[in-house]
């Protein structure tokens, strides 16, 4: 994230460097202040700061994901701490590893069982494109986006925890910026996603 230059820091305080501050403007009045905001912005702000990942890992990327979850990298700093073992309570699925043809229907079912709004991070080369298993393999799906829609892709084999954290922050930024996939779908009923 780029930060404002030093002399502008105080003026930009409400928007914030990381964009995690409450969205809206405060109008100071005697005896308190008035906050002006949009409900969509507030909902997106709340959603982006409490994303619960699904416990889902299919190969070595999952080791990096566990490392990201544990004390040294600690994704709970950004609101990801409650990893859920059931898709019905999870908001984001991190596809950490290779998806094979036999696993694809399971992944689809897990995604379908998650409640809206739901987000997907494709972690690493295998989940993005099949990676090292792109050529001469009978069993690997060439990219998890053949099975479910993906919001954020991470390069790497496997990506370092910093890369996963960056992808999570990018997802948060994406949620804060605009409409969810479901909201877009509701606005344009003729279009199917």
């Amino acid at each position, binding site marked *: 994230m780029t930060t404002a230059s030093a002399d502008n820091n105080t003026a930009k305080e409400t928007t914030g460097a990381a964009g995690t501050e409450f969205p809206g403007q405060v109008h100071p009045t005697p005896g308190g202040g008035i906050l002006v905001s949009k409900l969509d912005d507030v909902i997106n702000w709340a959603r982006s700061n409490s994303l619960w990942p699904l416990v889902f890992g299919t190969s070595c990327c999952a080791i990096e994901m566990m490392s990201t979850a544990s004390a040294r990298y600690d994704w709970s700093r950004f609101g990801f701490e409650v990893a859920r073992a059931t898709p019905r309570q999870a908001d984001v699925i991190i596809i950490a590893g290779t998806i094979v043809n036999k696993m694809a229907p399971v992944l689809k079912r897990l995604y379908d069982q998650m409640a809206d709004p739901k987000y997907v991070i494709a972690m690493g080369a295998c989940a993005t494109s099949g990676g090292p298993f792109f*050529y*001469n393999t009978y069993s690997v799906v060439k990219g998890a986006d053949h099975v479910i829609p993906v919001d954020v892709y991470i390069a790497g084999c496997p990506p370092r925890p910093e890369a996963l954290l960056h992808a999570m922050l990018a997802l948060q930024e994406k949620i804060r910026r605009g409409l969810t996939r479901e909201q877009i779908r509701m606005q344009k009923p003729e279009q199917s996603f």
Partner: protein
Amino acid sequence: MTKEELKQILTETIPGATLDESGEWLNMSVDAPGWAATAAQLRNHTVLNFDYLFCLTCVDWKTHLTMVYHLTSTSHRQPLVVKIQLDRNQPTIDSVSGYWLTANFHEREVYELFGVQFTGHPDLRLLILPDGWEGKNPLRKDFEDPVNMIKL
């Protein structure tokens, strides 16, 4: 037990074997016929006592197949690699699942991926591949799958 002693006992008990010491571990090549009897000797011999099969796999050399068994013992800790050459068109070998129970699943895996027939196996069917993959052997070098495979 040292490697030399192991070599000594192996040459005495299994006369048809060819030993090869070029690798880190002692390699032993035997013929496919009579493998069950050899396996029984390795497993039940009081000194050899190879009671732990820690790897069972197969290699496709395009001209032939090679079964590879990695054995060790919890009493003397000397590893032994047994290699058996098989005919690629009709790969058949005795099952050793009676001597090492872990061979049951490993032989099923080799059966589905390489098409090796294990005589005497109690339950020789696909292990991981879904139904409909019988006889396709995807780990053979000449395996073709125009739907799922992108050739390089």
